[in-house]
């Protein structure tokens, strides 16, 4: 277990600034997930922590030891690669033992560690196989085993599940979570998959074009996104954004088909007439059935908060997503109900939303207009 602290890490590759001053503190035993779209610098950051890249600026401290210029082998870090990177000419047993032998552990220690890890991950039957004779899931397990066998200070995972099929991914994700709980190790995990990010992280770090956009516990980041980017990146389908103007009484943000109530406690007094971007998650709206038209949805007579003229409905079985324009921007609403009660193309949906679920962003900077919590 170890603590890690990064200070103003900058990295330029060719003409591109990949990391633009990253600060990050990881506590001992914490599971930190770095998440962001492709090209945001998350893998480069991980490689920099591993020592496979050297930062142009900034410092990396592992347990208060400055390792900024240290070779990867001097850092006592283990890394699980996206490609698994198993040594193709070695059996599973020798793959697991590779790092231990390099570090001069006695054969007795090597044997007992390999035994221990193979038991932990159920690799017993595979020990004498070569990587080419195993499935993707098995290889992934060996790659994790190789990291665990070393008992490193810090574990790094570089999108370890992205080569697995969906069912296996869910299974291994849960296993990684269990592993973290049982080892109590400090782990840093890179992914672009928000489900992995949300479910695994103690601390979520959202990266965007080489900068930390927001960090915090995942549910907090989800509920209180600090920027339009974070709000749009987390959640599926992603948050709806509509350009709006603050009403004369400053109680709501208004656009065509939209009157979103403003939570005064969170956003304080916002001047009337101010342009804002309203963010509402598809899951945070409620259908006001009595006011919606057709198929049980009657055309609304009383003013509703959001009105959507439905042009597409995606039925998922357990829920459905109704698409339509609001305030000139596309809007998606999650609708629950039996298949025959779902809205159809041409219907008008009347939706309401709680003030707590309305997010406001600055149209220029994209930052949230909420005051510091």
């Amino acid at each position, binding site marked *: 277990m170890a603590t890690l602290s990064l200070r103003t890490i900058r990295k330029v590759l060719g003409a591109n600034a990949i990391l633009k001053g990253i600060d990050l503190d990881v506590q001992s035993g914490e599971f930190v997930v770095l998440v962001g779209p492709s090209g945001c610098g998350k893998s480069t950051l991980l490689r920099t922590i591993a020592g496979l890249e050297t930062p142009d600026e900034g410092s990396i401290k592992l347990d208060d030891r400055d390792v900024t210029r240290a070779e990867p082998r001097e850092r006592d870090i283990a890394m699980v690669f996206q*490609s698994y990177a198993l040594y193709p000419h070695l059996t599973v047993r020798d793959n697991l033992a590779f790092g231990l032998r*390099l570090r001069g552990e006695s054969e007795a220690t090597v044997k007992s560690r390999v035994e221990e890890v193979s038991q932990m991950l159920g690799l017993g039957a595979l020990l004498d196989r070569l990587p080419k004779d195993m499935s993707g899931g098995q290889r992934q397990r060996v790659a994790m085993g190789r990291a665990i066998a070393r008992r490193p200070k810090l574990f790094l995972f570089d999108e370890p599940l992205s080569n697995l099929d969906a069912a296996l991914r869910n299974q291994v994700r849960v296993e990684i979570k269990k592993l973290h709980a049982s080892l109590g190790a400090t782990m840093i995990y890179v992914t672009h998959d928000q489900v992995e990010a949300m479910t695994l992280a103690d601390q979520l770090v959202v990266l965007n074009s080489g900068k930390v956009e927001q960090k915090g516990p995942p549910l907090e980041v989800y509920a209180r996104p600090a920027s339009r980017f974070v709000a749009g990146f987390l959640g599926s389908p992603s948050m709806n954004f509509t350009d709006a103007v603050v009403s004369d009484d400053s109680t709501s943000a208004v656009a065509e088909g939209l009157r979103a109530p403003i939570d005064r406690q969170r956003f304080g007094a916002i001047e009337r007439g101010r342009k804002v971007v309203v963010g509402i998650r598809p899951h945070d709206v409620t259908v006001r059935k009595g006011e919606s038209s057709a198929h049980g949805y009657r055309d609304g007579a009383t003013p509703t908060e959001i009105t959507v003229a439905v042009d597409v409905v995606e039925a998922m079985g357990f829920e459905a997503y109704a698409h339509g324009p609001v305030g000139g921007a596309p809007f998606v609403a999650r609708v629950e109900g039996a298949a025959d009660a779902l809205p159809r193309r041409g219907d008008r949906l009347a939706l309401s939303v709680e003030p707590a679920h309305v997010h406001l962003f600055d149209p220029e900077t994209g930052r949230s207009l909420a005051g510091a919590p």
Partner: protein
Amino acid sequence: MNTTRKGPFWLEPLSHFVLIVAVAFALYPVLWVISLALDGVQRPVARAIPWPESPSLDNFRAILFARGGGGEWLFVRQLTNSIVISAATALTAIAIATPAAYALARFPDFVGAKGGTKALLATQMFPGVASAVPLYMLLDKLRLLDTRSGLVLVYATTAVPFAIFQLRGAFETIPKDLEEAAMVDGATRFQAFVKVVLPAARPALAVTALFAFMSAWNEFILAATFLSRESAFTLPVALQRHVGEYDAAWGKFAAGSIIVSVPVMALFYALQKNLVGGLTSGGVKG
């Protein structure tokens, strides 16, 4: 036995017939050489079916047990020359080309990498014989004419660049992740190279070594230029001496050809698994 057949009954015999004809066509010259080698006569007689008229092993005996002027056993001497020179060429090529190719594959931007690669490519453009005269003069100055090391040196000048190209391609196909994993696991770059990259490149190394060995084994013109003592000859040079200006001992020549081919065929056979692996894994390009 229950085999499923597709098509009419005559298809299988027909396809066998066609294949036999094709094989016979390909092997006909080889059969001629074998028949000539096993025949007592030295002049080839035009016959439709290559079959020795008076079968004997005299030609093989003449080649295998020829004695030199000093009474030394020439064949063994020349075979040793060929083996030592070819093996040394292959080893030199691999030893020099492996680190060079790795550097070019992994650090393609170091100073001189691009120019160096072009220069290496340029050496492949000229036939070896084009440099025969200057090489002769160099070897003469270095007192390396008529020596094994002289010939190894000459062969290495073409084998090394070729091997660099072969191996660079092979190293480029080995994922960087493997070395990085080894380095995170506790290896230095050199250890990662030796313990992970080289084993992964083994098929390509085998193929490259075999090519270097074979090109040295079969090379004739330069060897004939730089070697003048019979005991210094390699097998191809020795072989050629049986076909002189006024007299051609074709029978001995044929027997010699077979003897020269056997080691290469044996090597091919021994390495065929690697060859196929090497060919499909980008070990051989062009």
